[in-house]
């Protein structure tokens, strides 16, 4: 019968080694095999190999420090204080011999490579969902407050000191926190508390460099794994270890994440935005339906990222040239259908959404109607490969139809509130058809593509 053990004590000078020796001696006497790794002030000695861990019946951890258990996934672990090993090593080993092995372990250990991969994917998904679930209420609070401000009139927020202006600012503040929260809690899920700082800052930068929610997701993962890496590589003498969480980790990780966001993500993103704008300007004279499709695809691809921004800015710029703009109308229609379509899907395909998502679907209706495309982001972030193609297709349909029907609008925002204002929308009927059609297309696509939620 084989065993492995780890001993560790706070100072790492005496008890660690006494416990190790006690275990070695006891094992010899009892005629069993044991390998003891000591984690003392000299670092880990007599390190356990993967094979040894695999072959061991039980992992004994005799420690008064936090011993990382990552290596022992799936193993039965017997955890005691370091003094328990010194005091009665034989008793401890006997306990490990008598211990029942949970049978999940034996099966799992065999096909380790594939198992590990699966666990990994689960991990990434878990981190993403943590970020998304913290973000959802921010989107709802921000979006609905902004929508409320439009209820006072389409330009009501432009009056300083008005309640509409206040609502828009408050909503904007909540909405602005969406990316930092998403990135921050993805990183938090990966690396615990130290992840929060680089994650939040990275998310903030994703929004200032215009990288949208995809940029924020990247920032979150980058931040979390940067912390893990720093923790692994920086070895400090014990006396300086107190500095790790308060100074070293926050400063270094924020520096790394910040610089990556500025240069590696920010620069290409802004170049991309410029290129997209140029491309759109050149397209101005092209076939109306085709332009509508392009605008729709762009609006719904990154919902707040460079493509979306370029399309939206292009729409706004056309409003400066004429009192009403068909391009702006297409942009708005395409920006409304992503949340609307998803909201529709949460109603027609309930099984494919969690209870939380279905609730979130209700606010997506409101956000979509108010032309707050961000309402779709929590869904898109949670399942990008299924959601984004669906929102893009629906938005392309809406954009193209809006262009073909020659609908045009007079303001660059407002959503449904604009529709109620006389003469604010040219060819109102066609416009509504365009939005409804886009919504239905997205709703059906999401319903078909998404898998049923697995009940755990």
């Amino acid at each position, binding site marked *: 019968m084989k065993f492995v053990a780890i001993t560790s004590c*706070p*100072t790492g*000078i*005496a*008890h*660690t*080694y*006494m416990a*190790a*020796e*006690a275990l070695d*001696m006891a094992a010899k006497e009892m005629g069993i095999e044991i390998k003891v790794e*000591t984690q*003392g*002030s*000299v670092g880990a*000695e007599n390190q356990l190999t993967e094979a040894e861990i695999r072959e061991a019946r039980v992992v004994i951890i005799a420690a*008064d420090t936090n011993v990382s258990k990552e290596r022992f996934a799936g193993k039965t672990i017997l955890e005691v204080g370091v*003094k328990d090993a*010194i*005091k009665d090593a034989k008793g401890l080993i006997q306990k490990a011999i008598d211990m029942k092995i949970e049978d999940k372990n034996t099966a799992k250990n065999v096909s380790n490579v594939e198992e590990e991969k699966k666990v990994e994917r689960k991990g990434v998904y878990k981190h993403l969902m943590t970020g998304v679930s913290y973000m959802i209420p921010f989107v709802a609070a921000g979006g609905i407050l902004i929508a409320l401000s439009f209820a006072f009139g389409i330009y009501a927020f432009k009056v300083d000191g008005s309640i509409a202006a206040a609502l828009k600012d408050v909503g904007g503040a909540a909405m602005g926190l969406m990316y930092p929260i998403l990135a921050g809690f993805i990183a938090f899920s990966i690396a615990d508390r130290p992840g929060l700082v680089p994650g939040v800052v990275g998310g903030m930068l994703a929004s200032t460099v215009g990288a949208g929610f995809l940029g924020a997701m990247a920032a979150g993962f980058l931040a979390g794994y940067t912390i893990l890496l720093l923790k692994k590589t920086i070895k400090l*003498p*014990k*006396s300086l270890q107190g500095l790790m969480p308060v100074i070293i980790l926050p400063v270094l990780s924020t520096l790394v994440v910040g610089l990556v966001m500025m240069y590696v993500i920010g620069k290409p993103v802004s170049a991309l935005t410029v290129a997209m704008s140029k491309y759109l300007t050149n397209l101005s004279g092209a076939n109306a339906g085709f332009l509508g499709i392009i605008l729709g695809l762009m609006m719904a691809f990154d919902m707040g990222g460079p493509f979306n921004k370029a399309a939206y800015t292009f729409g706004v710029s056309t409003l400066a040239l004429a009192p009403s703009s068909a391009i702006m109308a297409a942009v708005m229609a395409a920006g409304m259908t992503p949340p609307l379509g998803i909201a529709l899907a949460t109603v027609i395909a309930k099984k494919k959404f969690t209870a939380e998502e279905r609730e979130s679907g209700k606010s997506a209706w409101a956000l979509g109607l108010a032309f707050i495309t961000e309402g779709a982001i929590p869904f898109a972030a949670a399942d990008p490969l299924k959601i984004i193609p669906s929102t893009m297709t629906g938005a392309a349909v809406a954009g193209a139809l809006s262009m073909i029907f020659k609908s045009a609008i007079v303001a660059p925002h407002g959503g449904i509130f604009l529709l109620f204002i006389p003469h604010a929308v040219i060819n109102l009927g066609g416009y509504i058809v365009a939005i409804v059609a886009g919504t239905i297309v997205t709703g059906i696509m999401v319903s078909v593509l998404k898998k049923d939620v697995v009940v755990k």
Partner: protein
Amino acid sequence: MNITELLNVNLIKLELNSKTKEDVIKEMVNLLDEDGKLLDKDKYTKAVTDREKEFSTGIGMGIAIPHGKSSGVKEAALVFGRSTEGIDYQSMDDELAHIFFLIAVPEESSNEHLKILSQISRKLMHKELRESLMNASSPEEIITLLQQ
């Protein structure tokens, strides 16, 4: 391994005067101080007593190994003390402690020294060594025993 880097005859006291846990730590810290191993006696003493508060280093079997890692230590050193009568050290097995090792380690210690200390810690788990240490009649004999 050369234990003389850590332990010399000045740091060995075959019959300790102290009767209490507090006094025995003081008495042994004084030996270190007199031998010039400390930079800041109070600081080191505090490290040792703080460590004791976590849980007693009286590991049973008649042995106690008070130890401290502190910037008040100049260089790694070891004190050996013995009490035939025994001292109540609040040991894990509630027995009196007879053999004391006081370990002093600076914040930045060479791995070599730490390894020596870990070796000694391991050896102390063996009954034969403990008995020999109890019976040794001179400081030199103690050093030889630990050197082996």
